[in-house]
C-alpha cells in the first residue's frame, strides 16, 4: 500500500460480525504519528476496532497494516512485539501482584522470561533483571506511583490503576499506544495529569490513538480525529473540521447520518 504521508497504522475495510450484529462494517483509516483521537457514539465499534487492530479479535474481513506490514489476524503478543500496545477500557491491573511486579513484567525480551534461563541464570540474567527493576522504578516515579510500589495492584485507587496501566504500556517501548478511554471515571485533576503525560510522551516521539468522548479534550490535544459511526468511519480530519461537520453532529445527536 502506498500512502501519502507514510502512516504508521493503516486499517483497510475491516469487518467484524457478532452473530447477526455488524460491529465493524468495512472501516478504513490511517493513523499518522502524533496524537489521534477516535470518537463516535456508543456502539460505533471503537473498542471492537481496538480489538481487531491488536489481535484480540480476528477481523471477518479487511486488513490491518502496521509500518507497511500486514498484521491482520496476528496474535496480540505478536502485534505488541511489533510495537503496538494497548490499554483496556476497564483497567486490567494484576491484583495480587505488586505495582513493582506489574511494571517489571512489561519490558520486552527479558532473558529471564525463558524457562531454561530462569533455571540456568547464565550470562546477563541478573543484569537484565536489574534493568527491568530499574525501569519499573523509573516508570513509577515518572507517573507518580512510586509510593505504592510494593502495594498489591488490586488495592490501588481507580486513578492509580489508570496511571499504572499507562506506565506499564509504555515500558514495552511501543511505537503506537492505543488508549481505550484513559480518562473514563477519572477526576479532573488526574485527567489533566494524564493528558500532560500523553502530551509529553508525544513530544518524545510516541504516537497515540485514543478513544475519548469529551470533545473539548479532543479539540485541545489531538492533531487528527477519526469519527466512527455504526461500524464505519464517518470522517477523518482536523479537530476543527470535525466539530463543525453536520454528519458528526447528527451521529452524536442520534440523527440519520446518511
Amino acid at each position, binding site marked *: 500500500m502506498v500512502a501519502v504521508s507514510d502512516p504508521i497504522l493503516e486499517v483497510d475495510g475491516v469487518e467484524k460480525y457478532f452473530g447477526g450484529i455488524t460491529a465493524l462494517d468495512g472501516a478504513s483509516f490511517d493513523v499518522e504519528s502524533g496524537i489521534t483521537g477516535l470518537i463516535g457514539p456508543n456502539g460505533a465499534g471503537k473498542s471492537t476496532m481496538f480489538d481487531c487492530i*491488536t489481535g*484480540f479479535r480476528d477481523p471477518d474481513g479487511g486488513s490491518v497494516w502496521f509500518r507497511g506490514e500486514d498484521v491482520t489476524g496476528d*496474535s*496480540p*503478543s505478536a502485534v*505488541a*512485539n511489533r510495537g503496538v*500496545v*494497548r490499554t*483496556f477500557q476497564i483497567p*486490567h491491573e*494484576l*491484583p*495480587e*501482584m505488586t505495582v*513493582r*511486579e506489574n511494571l*517489571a*513484567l*512489561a519490558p*520486552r525480551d*527479558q*532473558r*529471564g*522470561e*525463558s*524457562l531454561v*534461563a*530462569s*533455571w540456568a*541464570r547464565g550470562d546477563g*540474567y*541478573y543484569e*537484565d*533483571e*536489574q534493568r*527491568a*527493576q*530499574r525501569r519499573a*522504578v523509573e516508570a513509577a516515579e515518572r507517573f507518580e506511583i512510586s509510593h505504592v*510500589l510494593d502495594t498489591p495492584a488490586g488495592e490501588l485507587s481507580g486513578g492509580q490503576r489508570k496511571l499504572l496501566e499507562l506506565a*506499564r*504500556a509504555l515500558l*514495552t517501548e511501543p511505537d503506537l499506544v492505543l488508549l481505550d478511554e484513559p480518562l473514563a471515571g477519572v477526576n479532573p485533576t488526574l485527567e489533566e495529569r494524564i493528558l500532560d503525560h500523553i502530551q509529553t510522551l508525544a513530544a518524545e516521539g510516541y504516537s497515540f490513538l485514543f478513544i475519548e468522548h469529551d470533545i473539548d479534550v479532543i479539540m485541545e490535544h489531538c492533531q487528527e480525529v477519526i469519527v466512527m459511526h455504526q461500524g464505519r468511519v464517518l470522517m477523518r480530519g482536523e479537530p476543527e473540521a470535525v466539530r463543525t461537520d453536520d454528519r458528526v453532529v447528527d451521529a452524536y445527536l442520534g440523527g440519520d447520518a446518511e
Partner: protein
Amino acid sequence: MALADFLVSLLTVVSVYTLFGLGLNIKYGFTGLVDFGHVLYFMTGAYVTVVVTLPVAATSYEGIGGFALPQLLSGVPLGGLLAWFVAIFVAMVVAALLSLLVGVPTLRLREDYLAITALGIATILHTVVNDERWLFNGPFGVRDVHQPLAEAFPVSLGSFLVNLAVFGLVSVLVLAYIGYRVGDYVYGVDLRAAAMAAAAAVLVVAGLGAAALGGALVLGGVLVAVAGVVVLARGIGRADGFGRPLALFTALVFVAWHFGTPFFTAGPSGVLASAVWLFDPTAGADGGFTYGRFVLLVAVSFVAVAYWWCERTVNSPYGRVLRSIREDEDVPEALGKRTFRYKVQSMMFGSALAAAAGGLWATHIAFIDPTQFIADITFFAFTAVIIGGAANNRGVVVGTAVFWTLHTGTRFLNDYFPTEYATQLAALRVMLIGVLLMVILYYRSEGLLGEQTYDTGVAAEEGGRSE
C-alpha cells in the same frame, strides 16, 4: 507393625504426594491452570517407570514392555540404581510430552472448560489403561516392580549395638533438628495462647486415649477431645497469629502419640523404638536400616530437589509471567508475552514432576494397578494445595502433610470399632477432611500459609543481587 514403621510409611506417602502437589502448584497455584486431570501424569510416571525396568518375563504380565533396563545395565556399577534413575527420567519426559498433546488443544480454552476437558481426557485414558490388558495388564496390575538396591537391604553395620548406636543417633538427630526448628518457630508465642494450646493437646490426647479404651469411655473420650479442639480454637483466637499455637499443639500431640502410645503398649522399650525410628530392630539378624527407610530418604531427596527447582522457577521473570497469566491473561498477551507457550510449558513442567512422583510411588508400593490412579488423587492434591495455601511451595508441604496425616493417620480408629463399620469410618475420615477444608476456606481463604513472597534474585532498590 511398630509405630516407627507406620511413621516411615506415612512420611513416604506424604513425600510422594508433596512432589505430586508441587507439580500441581506450578499449574494451578502459579499459572492458574485448573488441571483436573493431574493424576494422569502420576499414572503415566508410575507405569512408564515400572515398564521400563520390568524384567522380560514378569509374573502374570501380558502388557507391553519388559524393557529390562536393570538387566541391560547389570554390568555397570550400581546399574540397578542407574536404570531406575533413567526410568524416572524417561517417565518425566513421556509425561511432559503427553501433557503437551493434551495441552495444545485444551489450553486454548477458558479455565472452567480446561478443567472439565482435562478431567475427561484423564478419565478416558484411565479407563483405557484399566480395560486394555495388552497395554499394561489392565486391572490385574503390574507386579515385579523394580526396586533399586533392594537386595542390599536391610543394611547392617555389624552388630546390633553398632546398628542401634549409629542409626539411632541419626534418628535422634533428625528428631532433635525438627524439634529445634519447631521450637525456634514457636518461641515468643503469647504465653496464654501457649498454655491454651498445651491444655488443648492434653485434652485431645486424653480424650482420644480414653476413647481408644473402648466401651462406655468412647463417647466421653470423644467429647473431651472435642472440648480440646474448642480450647485450641479459643487459644488461637487470643494469639497474634494462628501459626505458633497451632504448631505447638501439633508438636505436643505428635510427641504424645509417637512416644506416649508405645509407652502404654510396650513400656520403655517402646519409647526407645520410637526414638530410634530409623533403626528397625526386627530387620535381619542384627536389626538395621530397612529398604522402606531408604525409599523414604530417596523420596525426601526428590522433594528437596523439586522444591528448590520450583522455587527457582517461580522466583524469576519467568515466574512473574506465569503469575500474570493467572491474574489476567490478556495483560501479558497485550504486553507481548506469548502466553500460550508459557501455559504449555507450565503444564509440561508440572506434569513431569507428577510423573517423578508416580515413579516413586510405584517403587514405594511395589505393585501398581489402575485403582491407585483414580481422579480422587487429583482432588486430594487440590485439597492439600488449598489447605496449605495455593501459590506457596512451602504450603504444599504443609497441606500435604496435614491432608495425608488426617487421611491415613486416622485409619487406626478402625481398630476400636466393629469391623462392619470400616466402610462408614473410611467415609467419615474423608468427611473430616472436608470439614477441615471448609473451616480453612471460611476463616482463612488463602490457606494456612497464604501466597508466598517472591524474589527474582535482584534486590529491588539497590539494583544489586539479593542472593
